[in-house]
């Protein structure tokens, strides 16, 4: 009941806002219209002065709406759209079943209805300029920037094939069939000629990714399908626009000449390639610029946005494909820029791109709803229904035929279920909508076309958008495997790739691995040296390692204050030492978090707590291992805390060597895995390289481990490199980090730590610990939070 109340309050608040806004606007504009000659009057007397004597008195309170009108209205619309978006997520179940685009359009309907009632005109955002210059670039930038590059390039051929040939197929097919329909007298639209039909067809064959990708992601569909749809949508924007211009050109000409058509087809290539080249150029220039922004970190995000936007505008200047330009720019830029800019800038960039992109998208769907109600429609049953039919039909056919042709070339062919997913996922959206509005007025049935486009969009978004999810679930379409982010898998992927490249070299056969290899070498040798400040080529294995550590650390830090105080309360009661420990822990927390956060975010560390998270992903209970790990960590933590502080810088503190088990020793030699458990350390390794100014790696110094605790297997530990650097801040950080990692395990263990008999385990003969381990361990799924965080934090991930 409380829940419903919330929903109701939200809804009512929302509706109230809407009405208020419109009432106000209507009023204001009405008021504005009445003051027709403001030029003579001094500005402060323009409005709201109906009571005072004109020209004599100075009013205390004035209203000057026209001055702020335009920014005010823009802000209001955006706010409204955002409220709508917030409102949806109040009731979570809706967004699961109904894609957001549907909801936005519905709200648009409502608002449009209200506006219609007050005879208000919708804002003029659907002019060609406003849409193409302001609303489209953020969306495209968003898609381009967050595109997963590796799968994209692996499937590049397929994507291009579907985008270009598929769109052509669709447009021409639909156009011709519609033309055939037009010949039938019963529908009364004989005056639409072939060119106009083709034009219309090209508008409605543009597929739009928003709703589809959301669904695909939700059901974790196989990444091949995801990337094909994604890439297709990106590229067919370009294709559609080119086709549109082509047919537009033809449609307004009274006679079509063959030479002109060929010229236009030639221009298609110019447009496409030109866009790509321009994008590359800007991407490189942007990357180069960021090389020098070391001292002016604040403007780094701005550079990224401006360069992309500039690429877009210049492409528009030359009438080449601006979408390709901005996407290529984003792709090239991302790789190099993310290495040059600071962590903050990186986060800012991602965040802002997502924000602006999503606002833009929201607005577009919103306006779609509004405009549907407020424009005049021309309705023709036959034409429109057939349009719908053909749109669906040709897409299905197209996918079928195209897949048959390209399957032999693919390593992972598409089966029928995949093809169904692909064709059913062809929703139309924003681009079609905008293009429909920018049709030239000379076309007689412009209104019919607009209506047709809107019908197709609404049908696909609502009906297909809502049903695609249950259908795909029902059909059990191939899912992706999210368990692949482990070090082993990454290593072996690389191993495979190198092996395959090697074999190919051996056999004298070339394939895309060869090109990829060549490109990477060229990249490392030349491009990176120019564009990146600190050119250390980074292996993807190491990058993954870093990334996982970073995620782990960030997570820990974020939840540190909350969880830590909660978790080991039982701990305290068990042992007084722990009481002290927790106290000092709490003291530690507030002051150093930000510091640690900063330092951690940039540094390399090789700490192996990851094992816990991998255990999550593979969901193997391995209780004993878990217990061992946790115990180990607790004891390490205690040791570290006892050692004093996290601020010390002397080497003595370094004696808290959470030395890692696998300096090979324990795994190979006859050390019991207990050690795995107890030397603390299997996972907290001290080989922490702390580069201070971005050198990625440093050769660790070896210092003897003056372990405070009499560790039994100490003799082996002596060999272990305690490669802790002696720089001040790094020590602090190290301590801090170790602590934080240790804490992660406390957190991970939930509240079960009470069961650990810490006893007097200063020594590591933790047989008693082991023996006394309780059975009530948190089941692995409590840890599974970690993987999910991965999935839901696109900002954290650096897609490669």
């Amino acid at each position: 009941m409380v829940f419903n109340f919330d929903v109701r309050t939200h809804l009512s608040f929302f509706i109230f806002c809407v009405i208020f806004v419109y009432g106000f606007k209507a009023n204001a504009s009405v008021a504005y219209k009445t003051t027709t000659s403001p030029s003579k009057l001094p500005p402060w007397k323009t409005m709201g002065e109906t009571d005072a004597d004109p020209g004599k008195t100075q009013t205390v309170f004035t209203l000057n709406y026209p001055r702020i009108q335009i920014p005010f209205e823009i802000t209001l619309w955006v706010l409204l759209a955002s409220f709508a978006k917030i409102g949806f997520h109040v009731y979570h179940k809706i967004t699961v079943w109904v894609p957001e685009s549907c909801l936005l359009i519905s709200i648009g309907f409502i608002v449009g209805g209200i506006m219609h009632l007050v005879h208000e005109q919708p804002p003029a955002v659907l002019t060609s300029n406003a849409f193409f210059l302001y609303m489209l670039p953020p969306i495209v930038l968003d898609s381009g920037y967050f595109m997963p590059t590796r799968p994209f390039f692996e499937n590049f051929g397929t994507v291009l094939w579907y985008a270009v040939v598929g769109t052509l197929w669709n447009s021409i097919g639909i156009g011709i069939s519609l033309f055939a329909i037009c010949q039938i007298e019963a529908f009364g639209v004989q005056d639409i000629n072939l060119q106009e039909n083709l034009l219309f067809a090209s508008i409605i064959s543009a597929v739009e990714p928003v709703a589809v990708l959301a669904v695909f992601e939700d059901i974790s569909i196989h990444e091949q399908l995801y990337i094909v749809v994604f890439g297709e949508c990106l590229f067919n924007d370009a294709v559609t626009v080119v086709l549109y211009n082509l047919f537009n050109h033809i449609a307004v000409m009274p006679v079509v000449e063959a030479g002109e058509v060929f010229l236009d087809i030639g221009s298609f290539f110019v447009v496409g390639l030109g866009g790509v080249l321009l994008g590359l150029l800007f991407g490189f220039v942007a990357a180069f610029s960021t090389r020098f922004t070391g001292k002016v970190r604040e403007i780094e995000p701005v550079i990224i946005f401006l360069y992309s936007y500039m690429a877009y505008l210049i492409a528009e200047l030359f009438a080449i494909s601006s979408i390709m330009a901005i996407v290529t720019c984003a792709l090239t830029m991302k790789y190099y820029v993310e290495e040059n800019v600071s962590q903050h800038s990186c986060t800012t960039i991602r965040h802002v791109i997502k924000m602006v992109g999503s606002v833009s998208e929201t607005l577009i769907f919103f306006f779609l709803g509004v405009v549907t109600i407020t424009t005049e429609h021309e309705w023709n049953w036959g034409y429109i229904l057939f349009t719908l039919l053909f749109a669906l039909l040709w897409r299905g056919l197209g996918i079928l035929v195209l897949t048959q042709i390209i399957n032999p070339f693919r390593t992972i062919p598409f089966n029928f279920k995949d093809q169904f997913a692909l064709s059913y996922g062809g929703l139309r959206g924003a681009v079609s909508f905008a293009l429909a509005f920018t049709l030239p007025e000379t076309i007689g049935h412009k209104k019919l076309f607009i209506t047709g486009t809107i019908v197709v969009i609404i049908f696909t978004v609502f009906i297909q958008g809502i049903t695609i999810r249950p259908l795909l679930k029902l059909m059990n379409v191939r899912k992706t495997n999210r368990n692949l982010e482990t070090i082993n898998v990454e290593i072996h992927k690389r191993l495979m790739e190198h092996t395959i490249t090697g074999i190919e070299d051996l056999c004298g056969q070339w394939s895309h691995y060869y090109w990829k290899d060549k490109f990477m070498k060229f990249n490392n040798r030349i491009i990176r040296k120019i564009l990146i400040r600190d050119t250390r080529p980074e292996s993807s294995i190491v990058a993954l390692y870093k990334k996982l550590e970073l995620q782990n650390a960030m997570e820990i830090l974020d939840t540190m204050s909350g969880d830590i105080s909660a978790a080991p309360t039982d701990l305290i009661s068990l042992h007084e030492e722990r009481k002290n420990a927790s106290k000092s822990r709490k003291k530690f927390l507030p002051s150093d978090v930000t510091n640690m956060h900063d330092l951690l975010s940039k540094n390399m560390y090789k700490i192996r707590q990851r094992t816990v998270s991998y255990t999550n992903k593979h969901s193997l209970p391995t209780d004993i291992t878990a217990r061992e790990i946790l115990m180990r960590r607790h004891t390490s933590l205690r040791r570290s805390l006892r050692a004093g502080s996290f601020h010390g810088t002397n080497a003595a503190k370094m004696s808290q060597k959470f030395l890692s088990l696998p300096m090979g020793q324990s795994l190979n030699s006859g050390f019991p895995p207990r050690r795995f458990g107890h030397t603390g350390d299997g996972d907290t390794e001290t080989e922490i390289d702390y580069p201070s100014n971005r050198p990625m790696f440093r050769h660790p110094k070896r210092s003897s481990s003056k372990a405070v605790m009499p560790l039994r297997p100490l003799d082996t530990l002596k060999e272990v490199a305690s490669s802790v650097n002696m720089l001040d801040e790094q020590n602090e950080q190290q301590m801090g980090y170790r602590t934080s990692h240790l804490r992660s395990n406390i957190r991970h263990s939930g509240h079960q730590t009470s069961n650990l008999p810490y006893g007097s385990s200063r020594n590591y003969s933790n047989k008693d610990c082991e023996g006394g381990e309780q059975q009530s361990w948190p089941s692995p799924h409590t840890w599974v939070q970690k993987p999910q965080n991965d999935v839901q934090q696109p900002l954290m991930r650096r897609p490669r």
Partner: protein
Amino acid sequence: MGASQSGGVHMYQDLADKTGFSIEQIKNLHNRFKYLTQDEDTLRREHLEDINNLALNPIRRQIIEAFFDTRNLGQKEKGCLQEIGFEEFVTVLAFFRPPKPHIAEEEKKNMKKEKLRFLFNMHDTDNDGVITLDEYRRVVEELLSSSETIGAETAKAISDAAMLEVASVTVGQMGPDEFYEGITFEQFMQILKDIEIETKMNVHFWNLDTRTIQCGK
């Protein structure tokens, strides 16, 4: 090749049946073989090391070794050969054959197992059936050796991490006196079961290979 043509075709047919390549592909591979060995009958390591592009590959040593490893050649005893003939060459290459589009689940699993076995053999250089930490580490170091600045410590750390991961995933509960020897083949298969290796680890052996057709004809 006039007189030996018919003999050659027979040999090709046998090989085709054994390895699953088509006759065209085997012919191409034979041409390549002759090119590599400069028309000798057997292939030695030096021949493979001469290939320019291969020299840049970080794991070339393992790749080359793989050809001479008897385990890959289906022989029972473990060891390395010094030189191999064309048949062995093709047998090893057969590991990289892409699966035919419609094959049964069983066959797919077998293929997967074979490919994983190939990778396993690449790691396990001392032929004891287990990948020990040292062996794994060596491979990782070589993999990362292409980036010059990554220190040996990192490679070590990464390989250690990977071993730990395998241990925690596969072995799970270890008693107090057990220790983790190394990765066995079953464990190897288990951790890598999610890579769709049968679709990824393939080389498309084209039927028409224009690069080597000039040589030797």
